[in-house]
């Protein structure tokens, strides 16, 4: 009798612990969600008043109420173009090589170890690499090109890993069918593997770019300045040859740098600017992430091999 009672109590205790853990789990989830909400509300309450048309079309100013983020968002946009132009072809090519071509040898192992390790290198170290190599050894200066290259290297592992995962999910039968029709390896990749893995690759690219647009440390390290009252020269001109690359060499500022510089100002009016700019940046990255999550969701629903 007492044994049965004890057993029953033990079971009851174990079940109570189950319930307690669920409560703990929900508390942890709420903690994460509440932080997210607090962060958002804090920015809205401090910065929403500054968000008007002028804020987007004015340059930075010594007077907080006249300062805007024109140079910052144009700079961020220009840097992202360079980053995408380098990171996407390089990352996708490297991913294709590792999944479709690479033999199992030391060279491949070396490349894989490197990619894994690079994903864990702090972003500021990329900034130091860029400062020593691009700025001082190649003489590119603190330009749009330097920043774009730096961030491209930073997100390269993200793009490579996403490409590899997307390619891996394409079934082998597709490849065999292409080979059976006499396709070469590249024809097989180009006509079959790449189109099927495109949504997955796109998801990885967007996530990579959303990380790049918010990165502050590397571009502060290369020496980007926060006070810039001009835009990079436009890439299209009215004179022959109509296109020019001067904007690549132009000094620039970017959204995260602008926020950082306003955050370091003691005046409260600049804090409002910082939170308004932070709100814009967060909405930008959240939108990019939401697109990526939505893409992945659609991808999972539509593809049934």
């Amino acid at each position: 009798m007492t044994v049965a009672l004890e057993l029953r109590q033990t079971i009851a205790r174990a079940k109570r612990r189950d319930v307690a853990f669920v409560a703990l789990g929900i508390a942890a989830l709420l903690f994460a969600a509440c932080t997210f909400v607090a962060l958002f509300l804090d920015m809205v309450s401090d910065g929403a008043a500054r968000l008007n048309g002028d804020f987007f079309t004015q340059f930075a100013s010594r007077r907080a109420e006249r300062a805007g983020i024109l140079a910052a968002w144009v700079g961020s946009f220009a840097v992202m173009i360079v980053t995408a132009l380098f990171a996407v072809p390089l990352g996708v090519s490297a991913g294709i090589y590792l999944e479709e071509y690479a033999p199992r040898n030391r060279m491949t192992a070396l490349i894989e170890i490197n990619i894994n390790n690079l994903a864990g290198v702090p972003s500021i170290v990329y900034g130091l690499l860029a400062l020593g190599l691009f700025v001082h050894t190649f003489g590119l200066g603190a330009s749009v090109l330097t920043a774009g290259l730096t961030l491209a290297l930073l997100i390269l592992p993200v793009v490579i890993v996403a490409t590899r995962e997307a390619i891996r999910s394409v079934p082998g039968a597709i490849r065999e069918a292409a080979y059976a029709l006499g396709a070469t390896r590249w024809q097989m990749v180009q006509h079959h593997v790449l189109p099927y893995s495109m949504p997955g690759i796109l998801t990885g690219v967007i996530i990579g770019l959303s990380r790049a647009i918010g990165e502050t440390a590397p571009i502060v390290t290369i020496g980007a300045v926060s006070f810039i009252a001009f835009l990079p020269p436009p890439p299209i001109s009215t004179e022959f040859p109509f296109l020019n690359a001067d904007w690549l060499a132009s000094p620039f500022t970017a959204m995260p740098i602008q926020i950082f510089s306003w955050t370091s100002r003691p005046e409260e009016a600049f804090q409002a600017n910082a939170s308004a700019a932070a709100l814009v940046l967060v909405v930008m990255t959240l939108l990019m992430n939401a697109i990526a999550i939505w893409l992945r969701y659609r991808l999972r629903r539509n593809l049934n091999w």
Partner: protein
Amino acid sequence: MAASSPEVQIAGRLAYRPSRHLRERFIEAALLGAALVAVATTVGIVFILLRESIAFFREVSIVDFFTDSQWTPLFSDPHFGIWVLLSGTLTSSAIALAVAIPVGTVLAIYLSEFAKARTREIAKPILELLAGIPTIVFGYFALFFVTPLLKNFIPGLPGFNLLSAGLVMGVMIVPYISSISEDAMRAVPMALREGAYAMGATRLQVALHVVVPAAFSGIAAAYILGISRAVGETMIVAVAAGNQPNLTFNPMDQAATITAYIVQVAKGDLPHGSTGYLTIFAAGLTLFVLTLMFNLLGYWLRRRYREEY
């Protein structure tokens, strides 16, 4: 040509053509070249950090670098004791991990073993969005929201302090730890869980005594990645922990971390090649070696405790 029979045309297409072969080889070489950019980046990082650090250690003795208790590189009587910056890095990282490891682990166990599919569908995107917030925004949040909040409970807390930077950093790392641990737990075969359920175990007993030990390698890797992130995190500490080099392990103090120091110096206008300029590379090398050690430890842990199914 137009007169030739279909057989001849097909034979012509299938014939060995050196140009086609050459094209394939060229493409393969180009793809390999792209993959080698990763190797070149590592080589570049090591080369730049070593080159500038060697120049630095020509002027500053390596013994002083590790034993001096002051970090005043720009004073007329310069001292270069890296422990001053390391103490800030270690303290803020410890606070961050004290938040991120418990919360991240509980979340991972909850999402993998307890939550319904619907809850997971909602929770995972939220965590992903949290992970996608730029760190400068977290820094702003730490300085202008968390610090004033903490001041209500801890009177006399300075405006810049390691505590609020560390706490916010912890929240930032939670999604990394929870998502990697959860992936590891979900990879544990169902049969193991079913075996335990058949023995009369509750969900929590299955989670703690079967799933967590079986997924230990992945969970350990998640912790190591979290540590590596905390040590290398820059903007939160640069904004919220202050820029004053300070040999302290007290969370209520302000102190500069290695990363915050690099940002502070790089933001200013130091001439290329000066000792002040070189210090950021020596600090960067320390940081790189530290994170490399954690990455290798994670790799070793994963191999040592890997359970094969």
